[in-house]
């Protein structure tokens, strides 16, 4: 606990932070809510809730359309989030940030728009054994359509990618390397800078699925030299249905539009349509305006707390949680990478994760159970499913103690 105390004394006050998250102040089945499912979606602070409410109460209008006051306010607020996203990721220019529904759409946009244009029969796409289904299936669909090949970087028993095997997969036909920054199922933080560099040396592009990273690590797309980087707003304490795709302007400019419609055009006639410039070329139709504005408030909140503070505090929670769970007989933690985010995926001998999840729920503890949309990870580790406790900066050591006590109850029922 001394490390936790030192983080707190360094200016991070978890009790104060918790006051900002109204959802945390409730009882579930008569017990205080212990929310340990932030890797699925993070809870939202008042700042985000209020920004969305203010938009609907005061500023509601469509964007990029009217000359009237409300439309101008909405447009300014929505576009301000793009500027915030640029700073959040340290992109070169604002037009490199595309609003998408979430990580899934970000990946699909690249697979569909860049992929269809650039991937040919016999080409290769490299992904990793740690990927979420959303960074597998779009590439599989592309490969199937083009007669291209999907190659997979294997991992070891700790859940770390084998870079020497990755090196062997790279070749003259490699077009794209698409890997997650942080594994949602195991918490592994991948050495993406090195992965990207190796991809570039082979003449391939690199896309990083940042769904599990953006709220835990400081991201610098220029330092990483990522060609594409995408994440969902709702995991960064923003609303659902909005996310960001970063792409290098040079690449985005050369890509065809993803969807056609309003807002992505300069002019339309029945003979020919001239597409809009970046970023609007990729933003057809009325977007999730309220979501975009809420996401801006989320960026502000996270920035104010400080990603360094968040990362340090969550790391201490992870260390504390790892120790607490390791003391439980019969429990095995899956994912023991040396670089790891605050995810505790585990199995208990003889007890199915869904039964664990139900018993914990009745004690007010919310965890995720199942394959975490990462069936190949489960298969590699030889388990059908795991229980996953994923931590965020609003969680406390006391909540980890509650989890450990809850697991005691689970063992009591199934002993």
């Amino acid at each position, binding site marked *: 606990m001394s490390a936790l105390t030192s983080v707190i004394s360094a200016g991070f006050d978890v009790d104060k932070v918790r006051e900002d998250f109204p959802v945390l102040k409730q009882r579930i089945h008569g017990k205080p809510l212990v929310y340990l499912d932030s890797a699925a979606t993070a809870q939202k602070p008042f700042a985000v809730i209020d920004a969305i409410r203010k938009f609907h109460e005061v500023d509601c209008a469509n964007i990029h359309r009217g000359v009237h006051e409300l439309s101008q306010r909405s447009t300014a607020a929505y576009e301000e989030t793009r500027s915030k996203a640029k700073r959040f990721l340290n992109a070169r220019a604002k037009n490199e940030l595309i609003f998408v529904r979430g990580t899934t759409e970000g990946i699909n946009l690249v697979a569909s728009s860049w992929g269809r244009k650039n991937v040919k029969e016999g080409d290769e796409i490299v992904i990793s054994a740690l990927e979420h289904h959303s960074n597998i299936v779009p590439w599989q669909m592309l490969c199937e359509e083009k007669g291209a090949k999907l190659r997979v970087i294997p991992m070891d028993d700790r859940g770390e990618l084998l870079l020497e095997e990755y090196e062997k997969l790279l070749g003259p036909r490699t077009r794209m390397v698409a890997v997650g920054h942080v594994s949602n199922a195991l918490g592994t933080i991948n050495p993406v800078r090195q992965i990207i560099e190796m991809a570039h040396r082979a003449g391939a592009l690199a896309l990083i699925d940042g769904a599990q990273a953006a709220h835990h690590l400081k991201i610098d797309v220029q330092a990483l030299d990522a060609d594409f980087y995408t994440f969902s707003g709702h995991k960064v304490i923003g609303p659902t249905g909005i996310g960001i795709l970063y792409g290098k302007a040079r690449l985005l400019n050369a890509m065809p539009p993803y969807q056609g419609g309003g807002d992505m055009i300069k002019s339309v006639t029945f003979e020919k349509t001239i597409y809009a410039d970046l970023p609007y070329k990729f933003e057809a139709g009325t977007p999730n305006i309220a979501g975009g504005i809420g996401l801006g408030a989320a960026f502000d909140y996270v920035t104010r707390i400080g990603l360094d503070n968040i990362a340090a505090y969550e790391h201490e929670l992870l260390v504390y949680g790892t120790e607490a769970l390791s003391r439980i007989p019969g429990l095995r933690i899956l994912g023991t990478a040396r670089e790891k985010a605050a995810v505790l995926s585990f199995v208990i001998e003889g007890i199915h994760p869904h039964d664990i999840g*139900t018993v914990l729920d009745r004690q007010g503890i919310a965890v995720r159970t199942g394959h975490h949309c990462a069936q190949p990870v489960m298969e590699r580790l030889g388990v059908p499913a795991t229980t996953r406790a994923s931590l965020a900066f609003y969680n406390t050591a006391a909540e980890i103690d509650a989890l450990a006590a809850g697991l005691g109850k689970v063992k009591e029922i199934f002993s």
Partner: protein
Amino acid sequence: MVDDLYQEIIIDHSKRPRNCHAMADANRKAEGYNPLCGDELKLYIKIENDIVKDVSWVGTGCAISTASASLMTESVKGKSREEALKLLEKFHDQLTTDTPVTQELGKLVVFCGVRDYPARVKCATLAWHTLKSALTSSGEPVVSTE
């Protein structure tokens, strides 16, 4: 209380599932799959003169789905096809509607606790959905609870 869900008989059948083996001379087979949970089961039935002479299963799943498969096989063995399907209907009704709990279900009444756990109803009904498909379709159908 969570103990209402995990009654002793459920824990017992989940730890020592009955009729849990493949059957070489089965004349009806079906596979059930719950994509959300990853639960899987294969059901084997030997049906003679419209009577379920023997029934067995293999699969993986949580305590609820394992106990349900185990108790289902015990309950339908020896019943006619029609009786088995009627029991299925009653079981399903008891778990998914507010109809008062009746004792007609016999031992299966222990699953009525699942009513308070909507996310777990699929676990309790997977074996029964698979039974229905084995009894009503020809070939080796695959059912999914999604």
